């Protein structure tokens, strides 16, 4: 009963002077209002608890650093801090949206497994087999350059050294190899996509 007679301003002043018990009285006096205010915005007990804690950490630091300007408005000031922290909380959540895997929304429609499934693996193998067969149909010099470049991962310099032709000739053979492959693919309407 006696506690209620001491105003917030006096308690704040006492706290700044070093009376730690004044803070306990202030928290006890206003905790329900502040907590309810935060809860009315976020509707989550744990988040409310976090924001309540952060609010008072800010209050404590401001008071101890002597930055608080006493105007007899302790509670509105604390409420403003809580309000700002609630806004910060929602801003942070907008930047990193959370997905609940409910019935209306499936997280796997956004995140997919990039590895191939069994069907796609088989199709990929078939496409690669078809490409190999097409390469076999190419003239020997073009086939040689294409195999060295694409399958052996050799540079055109290395190809020219291995085949005994100039780099320009190797480049030309590669170009014709690709043109010829495209021609055959178009002619026979071969589908080489997964």
């Amino acid at each position, binding site marked *: 009963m006696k506690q209620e007679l001491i105003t917030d301003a006096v308690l704040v002043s006492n706290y700044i002077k070093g009376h730690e018990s004044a*803070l306990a009285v202030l928290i006890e006096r206003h905790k329900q209002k502040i907590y309810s205010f935060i809860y009315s915005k976020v509707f989550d007990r744990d988040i409310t608890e976090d924001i309540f804690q952060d609010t008072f950490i800010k209050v*404590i630091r401001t008071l*101890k650093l002597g930055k608080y300007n006493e105007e007899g408005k302790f509670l509105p000031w604390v409420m403003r801090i809580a309000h700002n922290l609630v806004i910060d909380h929602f801003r942070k959540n907008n930047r990193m949206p959370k997905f609940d895997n409910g019935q209306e929304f499936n997280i796997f429609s956004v995140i997919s497994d990039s590895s191939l499934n069994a069907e796609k693996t088989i199709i990929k193998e078939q496409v690669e087999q078809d490409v190999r067969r097409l390469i076999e149909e190419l003239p020997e010099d073009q086939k040689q350059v294409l195999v060295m470049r694409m399958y052996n991962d050799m540079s055109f310099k290395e190809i020219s050294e291995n085949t005994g032709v100039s780099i320009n000739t190797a480049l030309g053979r590669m170009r014709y190899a690709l043109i010829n492959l495209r021609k055959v693919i178009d002619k026979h309407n071969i589908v080489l996509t997964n």
Partner: protein
Amino acid sequence: MAKLYIKDSKHFETLKPKEETVNFLLNYSRALSVINCNKLKFEALLN
């Protein structure tokens, strides 16, 4: 008899922070000290 869709106010739990949260804040306050040094203020958290 008509159904009542409002909760009995007695059953509303009071919204207040956990005891641990309040204790944490009081301990934090006790541990925090501000050191003044040449117009500069430093915060020290002593556990």
